[in-house]
């Protein structure tokens, strides 16, 4: 394959996940667009084999999409460890190849966390600014949902597809929740409840995370394909090493190719869409005399304020069947407690699982028995589990950051990312609060509690936010309200790295809405240059 630079490119997008894919797709009709991605192009036909790996105990999660090794090394110098290669995929499609595909809008107060909850800065934009882009994002990703969430932000248009009906276990939870005065509602899925956009209806493989063999779950290959059909050039296995620049402009992206060559891609405009860890890393790697602390880092905020969502969960067993693990996504949620957030408690949302407890086929492959003994163990182990998860916001803190490791380099000799992650007390307190609600619901059901993930056991949900935060003041933020860096006039960032605060909903619908909005601004900026 030809991996040489595209002459006279208008737009160079770095990263082929949903953020880069959407920007490329929006602009490819009118401009010469080139997309560079560090990882490979995966064959759709190989997905059944990846699914087999997802089920077989020999393979770890990072193995499914070939993460790991010198290309992907990382360190964690903070108090909290961070399993970075479980938390991302490199390749055409990005981390959406692995994701679960739950997609909600942020709440109105999430944009004003500083003024309404006393935590972190306000965003420089409001829900109203993003409101026109959310329905477009829902259409682009293909979202199945219903307008039945009384706690969600305002919306007018219906979802592009009907919601997935509730599960049998949802009906068990519903009885308990009604008793306790907790409202349940459907949950939007970037997954086809009917065939959509040339992709199949969900057929119930049940391995959504880490791989959907049918393509019913959205992943960003959709937009990369579409961009290519409009003429964009997509170069895989082309990790950008650094960005050549002057004081106000990026001039070129310097990337490596598998044959050991290094190439220089120039363009009018650069869009960094490498995810919330690699985007700040690339800026830090591009330090120069003009930008000694990292490119676009006059504020010192590049890499700082690293946030993830924290997981809280409780599960148990019932005296009765619960029918788990038929599908790999959930169908009911509760956002009732979300906007009770204040300085003491963070926003949280509840997730009613359809996949708690063991999957029989996975159990079967990792025991020391077979035949009738194995069947008996499977029958005992499967059938009556029930679990509730929750996501909790963490506060942006300067001391939580992505940096460059001091003593470890990757396969090209660049310092690997150091994930220095810390979590604040408000988040930990809210995890306890989530556990209490979960316990209450399960107890109401008469379940015996068998597991809990509380403040001690909590871990990240793999949503990388905050590391190139958006703001109006160039001294404490990296990009402006359109996604353009304050320092460089042709450098835009599309990623959850621009989120000043995280809310408690999964980020990717907002990443998509922001990417569409940023693409509009780039279009306008390019229009101005060409008419000048």
């Amino acid at each position, binding site marked *: 394959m030809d991996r040489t630079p595209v002459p006279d490119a208008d737009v160079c997008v770095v990263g082929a996940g949903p953020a880069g894919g959407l920007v490329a797709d929006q602009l490819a009709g009118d401009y010469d667009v080139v997309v560079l991605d560090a990882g490979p192009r995966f*064959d759709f036909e*190989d997905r*059944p*084999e990846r*699914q*087999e790996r997802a*089920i*077989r*105990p*020999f*393979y770890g999660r990072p*193995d499914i999409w*070939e993460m790991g090794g010198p290309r992907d090394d990382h360190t964690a110098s903070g108090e909290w460890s961070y399993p970075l290669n479980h938390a991302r995929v490199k390749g055409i499609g990005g981390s959406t190849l692995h994701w679960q595909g739950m997609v909600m809008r942020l709440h109105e107060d999430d944009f004003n966390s500083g003024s309404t909850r006393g935590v972190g800065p306000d965003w420089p934009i409001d829900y109203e600014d993003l409101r026109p882009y959310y329905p477009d994002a829902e259409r682009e990703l293909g979202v199945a949902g219903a307008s039945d969430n009384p706690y969600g932000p305002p919306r007018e248009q219906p979802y592009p597809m009907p919601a*997935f*009906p*509730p*599960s*049998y276990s949802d*009906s068990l939870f519903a009885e308990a929740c009604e008793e306790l005065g907790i409202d349940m509602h459907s949950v939007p899925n970037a997954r086809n*409840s009917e065939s959509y956009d040339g992709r199949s*209806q*969900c*057929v*119930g*493989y*049940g*391995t959504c995370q880490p791989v959907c*063999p*049918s393509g019913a779950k959205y992943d960003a290959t959709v937009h990369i394909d579409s961009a290519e059909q409009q003429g964009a050039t997509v170069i895989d296995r082309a990790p950008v090493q650094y960005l050549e620049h002057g004081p106000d402009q990026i001039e070129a992206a310097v990337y490596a190719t598998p044959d050991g060559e290094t190439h220089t891609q120039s363009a009018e405009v650069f869009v960094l869409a490498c995810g919330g860890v690699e985007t700040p890393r690339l800026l830090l790697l591009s330090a120069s005399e003009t930008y000694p602390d990292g490119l676009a880092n006059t504020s010192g905020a590049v890499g700082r304020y690293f946030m993830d969502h924290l997981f809280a969960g409780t599960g148990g067993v019932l005296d*009765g*069947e619960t*029918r788990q*693990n*038929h*599908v*790999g996504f959930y*169908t009911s949620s509760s956002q009732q407690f979300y906007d009770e957030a204040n300085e003491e408690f963070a926003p949280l949302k509840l997730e009613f699982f*359809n996949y708690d407890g063991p*999957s*029989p*086929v*996975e159990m*079967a*492959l*990792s025991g*020391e*028995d*077979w*035949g*009738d003994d*194995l*069947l008996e163990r*499977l*029958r005992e182990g*499967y*059938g009556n589990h029930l679990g509730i998860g929750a996501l909790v916001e963490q506060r942006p803190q300067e001391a939580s950051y992505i940096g460059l490791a001091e003593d470890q380099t990757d396969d090209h000799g660049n310092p690997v990312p150091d994930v220095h992650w810390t979590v604040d007390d408000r988040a930990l307190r809210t995890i306890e609060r989530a556990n209490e609600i979960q316990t209450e619901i399960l107890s109401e059901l008469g379940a015996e509690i068998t597991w809990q993930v509380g403040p001690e056991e909590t871990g990240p949900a793999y949503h990388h936010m905050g590391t190139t935060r958006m703001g109006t003041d160039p001294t404490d933020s990296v990009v402006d309200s359109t996604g353009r860096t304050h320092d460089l006039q042709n450098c835009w960032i599309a990623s959850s790295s621009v989120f000043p605060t995280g809310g408690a909903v999964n980020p990717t619908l907002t990443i998509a809405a922001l990417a569409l909005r940023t693409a509009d601004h780039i279009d306008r900026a390019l229009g101005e240059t060409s008419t000048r």
Partner: protein
Amino acid sequence: MELTRRDAVAALAALGGAGSATYGYSRLRDDGPDSTPPSDDHVRETMSATAEIVYPSELSGIAAFVEEFVDARLAEDDDHAAGIREAVTILDEHSQTWYDQSFADLSADTRETALEGLGADVADEDPDGSTAERVRYYVVNELLLALYSSPTGGTLVGIENPQGHPGGIQSYQRGPNGLE
């Protein structure tokens, strides 16, 4: 409960012909057995003879199911197929050494003892591992994967749409009474 060729086709639809044609871990070790690879017939026979041990006794129709499944996996003619053949040879060498017979010719009790003697019951699967780990990966777990990702295997445990099977989006909505 009756296993059918249709179940095997269902398992294959999900798992694909085989493991790793285009990328992978299962680079075969060069310290494997150096005899000529066993014929497809013999692999089929050996896999069926193993399935009789590792599948629950209430199942019938095992031979046809295994045949269908194994044929498709071998037909891929890739590293995974080679791994299956190699693991069958390991089983045979073990049973020749201990019982002077190939594995498929042993009585059911002796087959179970032979598998245990090899350590395939306690080994973790590993396509590049020890003989026990390879037999676990390519023979024992290969068969368990085929069974328990199929609707019939799942139904034995109470899940008619197990992980790995594209059984649609109705089953997750049904309660236990909707099972029949």
